[in-house]
Every structure is written in C-alpha cells, then in structure tokens.
C-alpha cells in the first residue's frame, strides 16, 4: 500500500522537494550575510542612538524578499490542501479506480490511513522545513521590522515557527474531507481554497487574540506611541494627536489589539471623525496653543508638546500580546489545528468506510 501511495504521489513530491531545495539553498547562502549586516549595523548605531533609522533603512532594503518569503510560507499549506488533499480521493472516484483498489485485499480504512499518513507527513515536512528556514533567515528582519510587520503581527505570525506545519496538515485533511463530500475534483479544490482562506482569516482576527488573556495597561505618551502632533484646525486651544495603534512603549514587537487615548479622569477620548496616517487614530486634546510648550512660536518641537500633554494626564490605554508570548501562542495554535485535523480525519474515515462508492 505504501508502494502504491508513493508511486502515485512521487511525481509531485519530488517536484515540491526540488523547489524547496532551491529555496533552501538560496536562504542558506544569503542568510549569514544578512545576519552579519544586521550585527554590523547594530554595532554602528548603538553608541549614537540612531538604531531606529538603521532599522528603517535595513528593513526597507529587504522588504520585498521578506514579504515574498512570508507569502510563500502562508500559501504553501493552501497548495497542499488544493493539489494533494482535494484530489486524493476524488481522482480515484472520477477515474473509477477506487473500484480497482478497494477490491484488493486491503480494507478501505487501511488504504485511506496510508494515503493520508504519507501525503500528510510530506506536506507537514515541506511546510515545516520551509517555515523554520524562513523563520531563521528572517530573524534580523523580524527584529527591525515596523510594528505592522513584526513577528507577532497577524500575517507574519502564521509564517513563522511551527504553525505552518499544523496549517499544512489541516489544509491537506480539509481538502480530502471536502473531496469525499463533494466527490468531484474541481469543485472540491475551489471549496477547499475558499474554506481554508476563510479559516486562515478568522483565526488571527477572531480567535488568536483570545488564546491567552491579553495584557491591558496604560502608557505615558512618547516617541514610540505618538506618531505626530499638529494644531487642531484653525481655532486655537487644541492639539490633534496621532496615537499609534500598533506599538506600545517598552514592549517592542508586541501585538497591539486595541489602543485608545484616555483623559486625566481615565475616560476614553472619543474621536471627532478626523483621521491621521495609517496605523494611528487621531484624537483632539485641549491644550493652550498660544502659550506654553505647544505654542508653535516657541519652536520647542513635538517632543515638548507631547511631554506637556503627558503632564496634563493623558495616557495611551492598550491591550496587547507581548512578544514573549510568541512561542506559547504558536504551540496553542498548533494544538488547535492538530485537533481540527484529527476531527476532519475521523470524518474522512467514516465517509470512506461506508456509503462512498
């Protein structure tokens, strides 16, 4: 049975392996150079406190390969579900060969177990190796990425660590399950893609934030969480503050789930419809703009004005998942996908064991 499964599968497995080997070699060759450039840059910038500039330059330079690799790791599980999972049984049903193979001296359960097992292991190995290689290669970039592209950011998280392996196993079994329910290859592939995409969107948006209770805290305003500050409109007496929704001070790389400006009494300041740069919210703060640090004439700059607003008692209130939770969250998410995979596999065995012909 293993021989037959391998014989039917070896073409696409070898092709995938070849692509992954090329990718692996490319990463292995360029990875050390990237790491040494990062180390040199840090050594350079640390004494004169210009590391933010270095990070921006360094990340900007490698942004395209960074995004491309992240995308490859995100797409790989979907491909496994689409091209290995969905046709696994439907191809046999469409060619009628299930009638041949199910009448050899091997039960359908064993047939499915070997097919699912072997294909699943290859898919998991491919996604796992690819995910870990990209995690290793991207390490210097992950450390210098803007908050929206950091390791904990919804999209990047799924392309790092061990989660891709779980996604691949799940996508494969999802494809097989849809296949045995729909029984035709093309509709099964389309449905698998739609279902997998929906689940991969729902996971970071609806589920992952609550896998561990998020931390809630209030932070002083400063360079990390204030992206800009401008006089509010033409009338004086208020400043417009652009509060970051993706960064909190003191927790670099944290995944910020919510960020609000609270006034000195602790009430959330409501926006007035104005908007700022991306990943910020615009909030109006009453403060003298004719005298004091926020008066444009004084020429003290944004830092002094931010400090003045801070002194008045305004704070950032945020809920977030700190970067230290990266691995706990990876394990929890892997466990969830493993359970889903087992449940779907059970459904497949039930469906193939009886009724399907």
């Amino acid at each position, binding site marked *: 049975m293993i*021989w037959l499964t391998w014989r039917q599968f070896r073409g696409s497995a070898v092709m995938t392996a070849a692509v992954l080997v090329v990718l692996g070699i490319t990463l292995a060759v360029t990875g050390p150079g990237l790491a040494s450039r990062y180390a040199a840059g840090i050594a350079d910038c640390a004494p004169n406190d210009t590391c933010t500039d270095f990070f921006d330059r360094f990340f900007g330079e490698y942004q395209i390969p960074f995004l491309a690799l992240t995308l490859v790791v995100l797409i790989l599980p979907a491909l496994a579900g689409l091209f290995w999972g969905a046709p696994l049984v439907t191809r046999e049903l469409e060619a*009628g060969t299930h009638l041949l193979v199910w009448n050899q001296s*091997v039960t359908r359960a064993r047939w499915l177990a070997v097919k699912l097992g072997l294909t699943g292991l290859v898919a998991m190995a491919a996604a796992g190796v690819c995910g870990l290689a990209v995690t290793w290669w991207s390490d210097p970039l992950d450390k210098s990425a803007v908050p929206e592209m950091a390791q904990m950011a919804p999209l990047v998280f799924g392309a790092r660590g061990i989660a891709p392996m779980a996604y691949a196993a799940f996508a494969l079994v999802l494809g097989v399950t849809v296949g045995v329910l729909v029984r035709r290859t093309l509709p099964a592939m389309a449905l698998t893609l739609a279902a997998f995409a929906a689940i991969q969107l729902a996971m970071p948006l609806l589920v992952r934030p609550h896998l561990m209770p998020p931390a809630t805290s209030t932070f002083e305003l400063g360079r990390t969480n204030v992206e800009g500050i401008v006089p509010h409109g033409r009338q004086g007496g208020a400043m417009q503050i652009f509060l970051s929704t993706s960064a909190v001070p003191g927790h670099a790389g944290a995944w910020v789930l919510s960020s609000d400006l609270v006034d000195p009494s602790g009430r959330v300041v409501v926006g007035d419809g104005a908007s700022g740069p991306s990943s910020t919210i615009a909030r109006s703060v009453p403060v003298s703009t004719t005298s004091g640090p926020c008066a444009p004439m004084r020429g003290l700059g944004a830092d002094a004005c931010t400090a003045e607003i801070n002194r008045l008692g305004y704070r950032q209130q945020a809920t977030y998942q700190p970067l230290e939770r990266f691995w706990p969250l990876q394990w929890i998410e892997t466990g969830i996908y493993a359970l889903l995979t087992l449940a779907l596999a059970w459904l497949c065995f039930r469906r193939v064991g009886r009724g399907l012909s």
Partner: protein
Amino acid sequence: MTAVLRAQALGKKYGRRWALRECTIDIPAGHIVGLVGPNGAGKSTLLKLACGQLEPTAGGIAVLGGRPGGTPAQLAKVGFVAQDTPVYASLTVAEHLRLGARLNPRWDDGMARERIARLGLVPAHRAGKLSGGQRAQLALTLGLAKRPDLLILDEPAAALDPLARHEFLQHLREAASEHKLSVVLSSHLVSDLEQVCDYLVVLVDSRVQIAGRTDHLLTTHHRLTGPRCDPGRLPADQYVVSARHTDRQSTFVVRAGAPTHDPAWTVSRVSLEDLVLAYMDQHTAEHRRVAQEVRG
C-alpha cells in the same frame, strides 16, 4: 458446500428509488453464474453489494459465508472487476502486477506474468495507452491472479469486439475450471452468457425473476403454440411466463415440471435467449397492460 452468494430480502435504495428490492437468492459454489437483465435492472447494484462496495438498505447478504468487504480476509476471497474495467492510466502494465502482488496475500505472480505474455501485453506500456480490450484483459488478470474463491465481473466484455469477447470468455471459462473458481458475471447480452454460464439469474426492474442452473431452466420451460386462447385456460400446473397472440394463434412460454400432453398444443424447446426474453417480455407486458388501463 457453502453458498457463494446468499441474499435474504436484500434491497438497495438510491434516494427514493429502489435499485434492487426483495432479492432472495442462494447461489451454490462451483458455477459460472450469469446475471442477465436489461440496462438499469440492478445488476451492478447486486454485484457491488456482493463485493462490499455498497451497503444494503434492507435485508442481508453473505458472500462465501461472510459479510462482504469487511475484512482483509474477506476481500482476499472475492475478486471484483468493475464495469468499464478501470485501471490506473499512469501506471504501466508491470506496475499493475506489482500493485496486485503488494496488496494481495494470495497473489499468483507466475500466472499473472504468463497471462500478460500470452495476451501480448507489453509490461512497460502505460495502462492509459491500452485499447479497451487490452484494459479489460489487464483488469481480468488482476482479478484472477489475486486467486479469489469467487470472481465477480460486471459487464466485463462490454468494451470488446466480438472476437475478443469470445476469447475473453473462453479464457474465463478455462481459468474457472483450472482454479476451481466460482464466477458471477453480468451482461445484457444473453449470447455472452450462453457461451460460459451454467447458472442463470434473471433480474428485471430491480427484482430477481428467476434463478437456477441453466440445464434445469431449459428442461422446465417450454413453448406452447396453439389456437388463440386466454392464458387462463391453460392447465393449472403451467405457469405462464409470456404470451403472444396473433389473430388465430397463441404462443406461450410456460414454466412447468412436465410439458402438457394436451394435443391441442404444440410443445417445443426454448433456447436460453428465448427464456430470458420471455421474462423480460413478461415485465413489459405488465407495463403495457397498466398503461392501457390508465388510458381507458
């Protein structure tokens, strides 16, 4: 001797339509059984139930004394060659034999190779490139080399030209007698079955009409020809299978222990084909009557 196939009130429903119903048969071992009936009569359904591809909706079925398809041991005892004789298009002939060897404990590799060579199949050829006839032969080889006790074939000769069909059935008969194999094969062509079968099951409109050894069937069925009359006026022991009337004459195919001795009737033998057609005709006659009643 245990029955190769025993069914008790067996039924299979697809949605709301019964593909097979109230099927009760008991086929003894050691026969080549022909399953005959028009297209859509339920032949494939019965065969798929027998090899475990389908689960019955009603009743029960035992094949060689076991539940079909449940265990590796049961699967090893029953060979099945499906309609259209599916094979893996991307695998070569030799790889199909390897598949058989890997998946069947009783695999007879010598026999498989010998058969392939005798049929002129090239082991290195991909199965997808074979003609319909060659594919059927390859599928039959897989079924035979598995060394089952019962081989089930669903319309095995459908893709073959008349000569290939004749040879195929000839091989089948030889293999059956050589390996003490029971065979159940379906066809809608009586001529196919006449050549090889010594047991016949007639299936019409999802019901078994009659089952028995062919020689027994031929001695218990007769054609009666005589002046036109109503079937009800025939002797009570003559069960009418089909009736045809012209202006002056009536022809009946009847089932009876002994032919009637009434001199009004000319009694003649029926061929297997006549017999099968009579059972199919009986069914159509019933339908015709129903249609007329509805119209009236």
